[in-house]
Every structure is written in structure tokens, then in C-alpha cells.
């Protein structure tokens, strides 16, 4: 709200046109005014509600179009299924929630008050059956005496098993509001970043004033407005600014803002969160005002706005008064009545009663009268018109009653009459088809409280105003408790100037626009106590007596009140109910409202679609992916790919006629074991470790020694975490005195790089060592099998000596390839075969694969994937991810002897703790089923033979399995208690998950060529 003055609203409205005519105004709009309003009468739009077709105009919201069509009943409430209408004209709407669109685009709980009308809009009421008018569940109203706050905690306990089978399904079906789509959301979303000096939140009078000031001063400004146009309450209440009509001022202000290159105005953009360091989140409804977004268009966009300062000019929300029948369709906030009349030229009622406890509400009288409606009566507990209005023509005839509204009688469509109880206790009934209510205004303190700041009570306006705002944020205008137009403009201007100055923008900000300063007088009235359900939280059906019941039962803290009654937990987050609820609690406990306090304000300010928060990151784009240098070549060959972290790796290369993966993998393994094959292992992490102290550095991060490694040699290394548990392994080669080439596992490349940088920069900055990732620079292939040398000799320059003497096991050096390329060659073996790893610059990776295929043709060279790689490493008893599981020590893996005793290294001390060196630890062993045709499965547990499996007898589990083509049976690695001393023991493999139970032998984990003859051959 931005204050008021006595002048006319923004768009001059004309008398109600009950018999509308003319081609642009179809007859159905029975409650549309003949002229006026910010609607485009040249653009009629058809829409349907609950299957009934109606028309409205461009510029309408669904709510205003329904009002214009005389529709009052639009929803049913959550618990009692009471009929509900439209209460507000903004995003605080608690009642008028509808289901929009259909099918995969069905969208529950949309506020009719914020949904812009578009042609062929389809909306349906929700939470009713079979129809809105005849809702079977309204039978709940009869049970209302039982359905009080927290009733479900006291019952549904007997018999115990009825909860899941009977009671809960019943409750769940009854609960909820709309129905979500059950198909993938077909629309697109994205997310973007924006940066500015000053973010202005809310484009009403104060916000425009702030943006103008900061923009003129030279700051980079973003102004966000949730509505489809800026103006705020000016659009509904008008006023005179700088001697001109508000509409003219508004036009001038928006023109000026558009002319400033440093100012960006974002409409349909609602700020929903305030995060640390000046990060704000906003939702732009890019295409919600059309049926379906256009090609390449998103439906909504989430903005993260990084702002050095923010000025929150988010206005205020009018609050209801709690009295029996205050939820009837046709009971509407007074400001909303004015919005529908003035902005949308739609009459909420022909005979309107007003119930207000403050001066602002009185402007509704003028609005209705000007539009040709009738004022049935004004009920004001103060008993007379404010001084300002006493002289106004038309008001003289208005009936003013003291006291309060104590009941609302309902006709078929909504309010039929109201009952007014005077201060003397006498009641009278007054006919009216609409009741406008104003209980005062609550500044929108939510955004300013998102960092747990507490709002402060201000008696003069009987409302909370912002307290400790997040760093960098100021509030201005009605959000700051300034309720006159003049003050809003001044306050906004001052805030804009100050925020800009703090960002170093000190240009001429001009003067604040001027408007008159009306006094806002209010006499707090929270509740009219009378018989009947008086609602505090409309959507959750929380009544005044629920609040007092909670108090009686000891739920006195506001947070207990909220949780026990669900007050303020509905989709409006209590925007219209919280303050009333705690006022009633305050009265019941004899405390003041500030003593009672508020619940915590939490983002989002208004609900945000989950799809928007995900943006582009869904389906295949959920996470980025990494491709190996030979990816497209492998795809050509029909490889099956597997996700390994972010990488896509060739898992196996099926050939025509192969019946399953096992057949392909077995072929690949046998080809390697019998001849030669190759595998893209570029996914291994690769790090250049450079500088004179590189060797010393590696000595400290690895458990074994690297400073003594000769240039031209490679060594297997193992590193621990500082807690003594194994972190990663890999081979590291010394390519020059001051150059080591370190490799990591695929999974740990990132964490290891981070760890190494920590060691270099934090732990040992005295060491002269430099690190850089070389993972993506190199395409690396493992070439393995007895024919490896033959194959390599074909691609490598003949001058290079690949013999055992010329290139011994664990040798590492550069070689020239035929055709002029230089490669790095490492004689290392994961498969246990005679093998080399070769790396070439990544751009030649695909060429290398193709050339290996050509060179290896005589030997039947076979590309193999990660499955075959895994089979061969299990046959060789090499540990990998399943064994390096973050809980195993070097000794658990059989690598304890590698731990140097001559030096400190990361993890050395902690690895010595008693429980990590206990003799009964589970260590890596081999297992093979006694029955050679039995399939072994990972995750099966190991228990001693002849005992009953139980927590006490569970001795370990199978970590990795494969079908070994050379042994022609399933084999595996396992972590087994005291396993190394149990080779030859028959144990029970217990796998209840898969209903399997069989015997296996514990054995040496190296199943294949335990002497290592082949890899050295």
C-alpha cells in the first residue's frame, strides 16, 4: 500500500454496467464496469472455470475476470471444505486457489489473484467432489466439533494397525489441496545471474522513487516487481504526485527509468529469498501469462541477483478481522475491493458493506460510490467517519455503525447479509452482497526477517515493522510502516540516495516527488467475539477457538501455536493470518503482542516451482558429462557406455551374435590374455608434479618413497588420509629430475588434486613444488597382452627399443610414433599381462585408437571396456574402489609393508591406532565358490561354516566379483576377519537378499599368475 489522498484513482471508473453491450464487451461480464480500468477492452479473452466458459480482457487476472463475471464461489477450504471466494488481489491470497491448465501442465494451488488471464485459460476448482457447489466432503463441517486443532494427536490410535490401513489413507485423501501433474513437466526453465549496486524490491511509489534516486545518482540499479506492471497501490488507489495525476507521474517515472542505461526494471519478477553476502533470489514468470511458452522460450526463470545494497519497498498487506463468517465468499479485503473496482473495472458487489477499524478502509466508500455501487453500511468500531471523510460528498448518506460484524449470512453465491453487533450488544442485520474488511495494514517484513532478524512492534500503526534487516538491506515506504503517499515517495528517495552513495554513486539524485501526507489512524480490533466459526487462517481452517484451545493445552509459544494448529503453514505462509493469530494468543495469555512474538520468517516469500529452481539441470542435463578422447570412435564400434562419476566410459564392445554382456566381456578378456587388447584409461586423474622439491613432496603424501625413484621409472604409490585410512592409489612416474607425472583413480582425481594443493599451499609451503592437472591433456591407453610388444613395434619408430632391457618393467619415457607424434610410454600392468600404457595429446586419442586397430589387426587386437578391465584386476587381486572404501587401511588391503618407517607421511601416525592395527580386522582375500558353476555376488556376507548367520558371526563380505575366463568360474575379492590366515578355509556365503547361501573357499587374492611372470615377460 502506498498511502492515499482524496483524489481519484488511477483510472477513472464509470458506473457499473449491468446491461453491458458493444462488441468488445460480451454480456457475460455482468459485474464489469462500462469503462475505466487498466484492461484492454479491445482484447477480449475467453477462459473457463470449472468447465464454464466466460470472457475477460487482457490486463485481467483470473480473479478479476471471475469478479467481473460475478463468480463468488471459487474454492473449498482445506479441512471443513467450506465454500470460499476471492479475498485479496495479490500474492497473499489464502482462499482463491485453483488448478490451472491440464495434463502434464496441470498446476495445483495457483492463486487466481496473480494468474494473468490469457486466451483459453483453463482453471478448475480443487479439493471438492463431485463439484464445487455440491462438495461431498463439506460433511466435514458437521464433524467440526471434533475436528479441532490437534484432534488427530488424540485419536486414531486403536487398533494400532488401523493407522496405515484405514485412518491415514483417509486423512491423506482428504488433505492436500490441488492435484499435481503426474507426467514430466514439458516446459523448460532456466536460471540466470544478475549484478547491481542497488536492488529495489517492489515497484510501488516508494520503489519507483528509490530506483529513480539511485539510478540518477549513477548506481547500477535493478528494480523487481512481481506484478505485470509497476505502480503498486497507485494502480488501485491513484493519488496526486508532483501536482499531476498518479497515472501521469507513473508514466513519466517509467519513461525516465527506461532512459537510464544503468537501470533495469524487471516486471513479473518476484523476489523470494535473501541469502548471504548480498545474494537475492527472484522468480521471473516469463511465460505464465500465455498458454504455452513459445519455441525456445522458458516458462519461468530463477534469478540470483548479486547486489551490494538493497532497498525493500515491498509494501504492506491488509489484514482481516476475525469474526464469525469472515470466510464467506464475498467477504473481501477492502483494498482488494478497490483494486477490482479501480484497476480492473470489476465490481465485487452491488451493495457493499464495509467493516474497518482504520481510516484507510474508508477510501473504499468513495471507490464504490464512484463506480455506481451502493454502500450498505460502514461498520467502524470507532463509530464515525474519519474527519477527512466527513466533508466528502456522498458520505453524508452512508450509514455508519459502531461495534463489529458478528456474523455473515450466506446465500447461494456468497454474502447475503451481515449481522452487526453494536457496543450496546444489540444486533442488526444489513443486506449486502459484499463485505469489504480492513483490519489495518501489516508492513511486508518477511524479506527483512529472512536472516532471523526480529520485527519490531509499532503501536501507532498497530503492526510490526522491520527490525534487524540483513546486512546491506534497508526498507522504505509502506514496508517500513510509512503509510502516506508523500512519506512513501520521500522514504524511497532517501533510501535510494543512501544506497547509491554507499556504492560510491553520488551523482545528482534530484528531489523526491511530492504528495500529501494523510494521517493513518487505526484503532486495533483483532476479533469480534460471537458465536460461530471465526477464521484466523482461512486456508487451513484455523479458528479463533483453535488458538485459545492451543493456549489451554499449553501450546503458548507462537511456534507451538503454529505447529499445533497449523496456523500460518498454508500456501500463503500466514501473510493474512499470523498477526491476528498471535494477537488472539496474546490476549489469551495476558501478554502483549510484542511479548508474544512472531514465528520465524522463512523463504521463499512466495512459493516457487521446483522446476524453476532446477532450471536447465534435468534429464540428460542434470549434470555435466565428460567424454574420453576415444568416445566417438567407441560409439562407432557400438560400445555400451557406463557412467563412472561424470565420465562416460566404454563398458564393453558387443559383437554381433553375442548373447549377453558376459559373452562380450569374456571374449575381450581372453583376447587380452591370449593376444592383445587396449582400453582407454584417460579417465585416470593425472597431475604434473613439478619443481626441485617434487620428490620430497611426494614422499610426504605417499606412504612409500618417491624421491629415490630414478628418472625414467614408474612406481605404484598409495596415499592415506590423515586419519590413517587409505585415500587413493596409482602409479607415478619420474619424467625428469623435477617432473613427476602422478596418476590417481578416476573417482578420486578431484579430491586428490585438492588434497595435494592443500599439502603444497598450507602444510608445506616451504617446498618448491608446482602442481597442475594434466588429466585432460592426455589420451591414455592401456595396451595389454602377450602380443603387446608386437603391436607397439608397429606404431612406434623402429629406433625405440621395447625389449626388457631397453624398456624394463616399470620403465617410463617418451617415444616417437610413426608419423611424427611423440608419446609417453609407461610399462605398467593392471591386467597382469605384458602391458604398456601409452599417452598422446588428447587430440590424437581417437587417431591412436584407430592406429592401434590397424597395427593390431594381424594379432586380432581387441578393444576392451571397463568390465574386462575389472575382470582382469580381480584375477590379479588388485584392489580398487570397492576395497578402497574409506574404511580400510593399507594393511587391510595387503599393502601394509609399503608403509615406510623412515619418514613422516600423511596418515602415518593415526594409522597406528590400536583398533586400526587390531589382529581381527577384515582384510582383503580371494574367494571362490566350492561349486564351480555357482555365481558369486558382491555384497554377500561371509560367515563361518556351520554357524547361524547373525551379528556375532558376520565376518565380512564380498567386495568385487567376476567370472574369470581363465579359471572358468566366478571368483571374488572379500574383506574377511583375519582373512590372510584362513586361506583354504571353507566358509559360508550368506546372501539372504537374493536368497542365496553356499560355500566358498578363502584363498590368495591373486588368482592369476601370482609370480607376476607374464607382466615382466
Amino acid at each position, binding site marked *: 500500500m502506498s498511502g492515499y489522498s482524496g483524489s481519484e484513482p488511477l483510472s477513472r471508473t464509470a458506473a457499473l454496467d449491468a446491461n453491458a453491450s458493444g462488441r468488445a464487451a460480451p454480456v457475460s461480464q455482468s459485474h464489469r464496469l462500462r469503462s475505466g480500468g487498466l484492461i484492454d477492452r479491445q482484447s477480449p479473452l475467453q477462459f473457463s472455470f470449472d468447465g464454464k466458459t466466460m470472457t475477460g480482457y487482457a490486463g485481467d487476472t483470473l480473479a478479476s475476470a471471475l469478479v467481473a463475471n460475478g463468480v463468488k464461489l471459487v474454492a473449498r477450504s482445506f479441512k471443513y471444505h467450506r465454500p470460499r471466494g476471492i479475498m485479496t488481489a495479490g500474492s497473499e491470497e489464502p482462499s482463491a486457489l485453483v488448478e490451472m491448465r491440464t495434463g502434464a501442465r496441470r498446476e495445483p494451488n495457483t492463486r487466481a489473484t496473480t494468474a494473468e488471464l490469457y486466451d483459453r485459460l483453463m482453471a478448475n476448482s480443487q479439493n471438492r467432489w463431485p463439484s464445487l457447489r455440491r462438495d461431498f466432503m463439506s460433511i466435514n463441517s458437521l464433524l467440526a466439533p471434533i475436528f479441532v486443532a490437534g484432534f488427530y494427536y488424540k485419536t486414531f490410535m486403536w487398533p494400532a494397525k488401523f493407522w496405515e490401513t484405514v485412518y491415514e489413507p483417509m486423512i491423506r485423501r482428504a488433505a492436500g489441496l490441488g492435484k499435481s501433474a503426474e507426467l514430466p513437466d514439458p516446459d523448460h526453465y532456466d536460471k540466470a545471474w544478475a549484478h547491481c549496486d542497488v536492488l529495489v524490491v517492489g515497484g510501488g511509489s516508494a520503489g519507483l522513487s528509490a530506483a529513480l534516486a539511485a539510478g540518477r545518482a549513477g548506481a547500477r540499479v535493478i528494480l523487481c516487481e512481481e506484478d505485470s506492471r509497476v505502480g503498486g497501490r497507485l494502480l488501485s488507489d491513484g493519488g496526486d504526485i508532483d501536482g499531476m495525476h498518479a497515472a501521469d507521474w507513473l508514466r513519466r517515472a517509467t519513461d525516465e527509468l527506461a532512459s537510464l542505461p544503468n537501470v533495469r526494471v524487471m516486471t513479473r519478477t518476484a523476489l523470494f529469498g535473501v*541469502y*548471504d*553476502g*548480498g*545474494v537475492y533470489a527472484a522468480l521471473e514468470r516469463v511465460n505464465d501469462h500465455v498458454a504455452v511458452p513459445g519455441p525456445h522460450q522458458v516458462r519461468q526463470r530463477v534469478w540470483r541477483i*548479486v547486489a551490494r545494497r538493497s532497498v525493500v519497498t515491498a509494501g504492506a498487506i491488509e489484514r482481516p478481522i476475525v469474526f464469525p463468517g469472515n470466510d464467506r465468499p464475498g467477504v473481501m479485503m477492502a483494498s482488494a475491493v478497490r483494486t477490482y473496482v479501480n484497476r480492473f473495472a470489476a465490481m465485487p458487489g452491488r451493495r457493499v458493506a464495509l467493516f474497518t477499524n482504520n481510516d484507510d478502509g474508508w477510501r473504499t466508500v468513495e471507490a464504490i460510490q464512484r463506480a455506481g455501487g451502493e454502500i450498505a453500511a460502514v461498520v467502524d468500531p470507532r463509530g464515525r467517519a474519519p474527519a477527512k471523510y466527513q466533508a466528502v460528498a456522498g458520505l453524508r448518506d452512508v450509514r455508519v455503525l459502531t461495534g463489529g460484524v458478528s456474523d455473515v449470512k450466506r446465500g447461494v453465491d456468497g454474502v447475503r447479509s451481515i449481522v452487526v453487533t453494536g457496543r450496546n450488544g444489540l444486533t442488526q442485520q444489513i443486506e449486502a452482497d459484499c463485505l469489504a474488511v480492513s483490519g489495518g495494514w501489516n508492513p511486508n517484513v518477511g524479506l527483512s526477517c529472512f*536472516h532471523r532478524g526480529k520485527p519490531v512492534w509499532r503501536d501507532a500503526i498497530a503492526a510490526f515493522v522491520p527490525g534487524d534487516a540483513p*546486512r546491506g538491506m534497508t526498507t522504505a515506504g509502506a514496508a517500513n510502516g510509512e503509510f502516506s503517499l508523500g512519506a512513501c515517495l520521500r522514504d524511497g528517495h532517501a533510501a535510494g540516495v543512501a544506497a547509491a552513495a554507499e556504492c560510491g554513486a553520488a551523482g545528482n539524485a534530484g528531489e523526491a516527488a511530492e504528495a500529501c501526507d494523510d494521517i493513518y489512524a487505526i484503532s486495533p480490533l483483532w476479533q469480534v467475539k460471537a458465536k460461530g466459526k471465526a477464521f484466523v487462517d482461512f486456508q487451513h481452517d484455523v479458528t479463533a477457538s483453535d488458538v485459545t484451545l492451543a493456549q489451554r493445552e499449553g501450546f503458548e509459544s507462537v511456534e507451538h501455536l503454529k505447529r499445533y494448529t497449523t496456523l500460518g503453514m498454508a500456501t500463503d505462509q500466514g501473510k493474512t493470518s499470523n498477526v491476528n493469530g498471535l494477537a488472539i494468543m496474546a490476549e489469551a495469555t495476558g501478554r502483549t503482542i510484542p511479548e508474544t512474538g512472531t514465528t520465524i520468517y522463512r523463504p521463499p516469500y512466495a512459493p516457487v516451482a521446483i522446476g524453476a529452481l532446477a532450471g536447465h539441470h534435468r534429464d540428460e542435463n542434470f549434470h555435466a558429462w565428460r567424454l574420453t578422447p576415444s568416445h566417438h570412435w567407441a560409439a562407432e564400434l557400438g560400445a555400451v557406455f557406463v557412467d563412472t562419476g561424470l565420465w562416460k566410459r566404454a563398458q564393453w564392445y558387443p559383437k554381433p551374435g553375442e548373447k549377453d554382456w558376459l559373452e562380450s566381456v569374456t571374449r575381450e578378456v581372453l583376447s587380452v590374455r591370449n593376444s592383445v587388447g587396449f582400453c582407454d584409461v584417460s579417465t585416470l586423474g593425472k597431475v604434473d608434479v613439478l619443481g626441485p622439491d617434487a620428490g620430497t613432496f611426494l614422499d610426504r603424501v605417499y606412504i612409500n618413497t618417491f624421491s629415490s625413484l630414478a628418472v625414467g621409472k614408474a612406481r605404484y604409490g598409495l596415499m592415506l588420509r*590423515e*586419519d590413517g585410512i587409505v585415500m587413493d592409489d596409482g602409479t607415478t612416474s619420474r619424467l625428469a629430475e623435477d617432473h613427476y607425472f602422478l596418476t590417481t583413480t578416476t573417482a578420486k582425481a*578431484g579430491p586428490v*588434486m*585438492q588434497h595435494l*594443493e*592443500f599439502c*603444497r*599451499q*598450507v*602444510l*608445506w*609451503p*616451504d617446498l*618448491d613444488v608446482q602442481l597442475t592437472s594434466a588429466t585432460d591433456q592426455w589420451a591414455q591407453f592401456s595396451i595389454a597382452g602377450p602380443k603387446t610388444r608386437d603391436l607397439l613395434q608397429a606404431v612406434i619408430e623402429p629406433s625405440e627399443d621395447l625389449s626388457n632391457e631397453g624398456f624394463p618393467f616399470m620403465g617410463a619415457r617418451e617415444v616417437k610414433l610413426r608419423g611424427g607424434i611423440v608419446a609417453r610410454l609407461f610399462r605398467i600392468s593392471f591386467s597382469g599381462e605384458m602391458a604398456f600404457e601409452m599417452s598422446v595429446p588428447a587430440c590424437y586419442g581417437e587417431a591412436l585408437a584407430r592406429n592401434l586397430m590397424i597395427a593390431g589387426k594381424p594379432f586380432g587386437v581387441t578393444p576392451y571396456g571397463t568390465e574386462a578391465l575389472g575382470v582382469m584386476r580381480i584375477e590379479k587381486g588388485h584392489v580398487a574402489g570397492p576395497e578402497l572404501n574409506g574404511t580400510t587401511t593399507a594393511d587391510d588391503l595387503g599393502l601394509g609393508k609399503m608403509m615406510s*618407517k*623412515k*619418514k*613422516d607421511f600423511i596418515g*602415518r*601416525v*593415526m594409522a*597406528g*591406532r590400536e583398533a586400526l592395527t587390531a589382529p581381527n580386522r577384515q582384510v582383503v582375500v580371494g574367494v571362490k565358490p566350492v561349486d564351480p558353476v555357482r555365481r558369486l555376488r558382491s555384497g554377500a556376507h561371509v560367515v563361518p561354516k556351520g554357524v547361524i548367520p547373525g551379528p556375532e558371526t558376520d565376518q565380512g563380505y564380498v567386495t568385487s566379483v567376476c567370472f574369470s575366463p581363465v579359471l572358468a568360474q566366478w571368483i571374488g575379492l572379500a574383506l574377511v576377519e583375519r582373512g590372510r590366515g584362513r586361506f583354504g578355509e571353507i566358509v559360508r556365503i550368506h546372501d539372504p537378499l537374493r536368497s542365496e547361501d553356499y560355500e566358498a573357499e578363502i584363498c590368495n587374492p591373486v588368482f592369476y599368475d601370482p609370480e607376476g611372470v607374464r607382466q615382466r615377460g
Partner: protein
Amino acid sequence: MRIACPFCGERESGEFTYLGDASPKRPNFAVDSVAGPEPAEDAFYDYVYLRDNVAGVMREYWYHGGGCRSWLIAERNTVTHEFGSVTAAPGAGATKLAQAGE
């Protein structure tokens, strides 16, 4: 959350990885110590596991892995999330240091 990298300027927190309290210092471990493993294990236990878990301003390690790959030491209030000074780890650049670092 925004973090002012001393090299890159203010950046989005998503570019950084968090390690935690920068107060614990890695103990020196003398290989030839005759005191037995206990004292060293006690010292490392303290370093690896025990935390002041400050409610207030804490010095902590952040790694600008999604940026310039520098380890940083930031002062940050764990109650308000507000950052104070952010400085580079001693070995972030090429400065030569006589002593071991943090």
C-alpha cells in the same frame, strides 16, 4: 554466499570447497622419537578430530578450486555467515618461505 578471493575478487561460494577450522596445526612427527607412539597419537588425535566448533568468528580453510586453485584462510562468523578478512594460504603463490606453513 560470496567470498572475496584475494586474487580473483568476490566470487560465488559455489566456486569454493570448504575444509573447516584453520586453527588446528599439523603436529611435527619425529620418526626417531623414543617416546613411543602415544604422544604422537594424542597430538594427531587432537589435530584430526577435536574442534572448538566456534559459534562466532572462526578462521577456516576454503579452496578456490573452481577458480584460481588457491587455498584461502577466511574469517567468517558461523552465526551470521558474515565474512571478515580472506587471505591466501602462505604457499598459494610463489613466495619463498623458510618455514613450514600452517
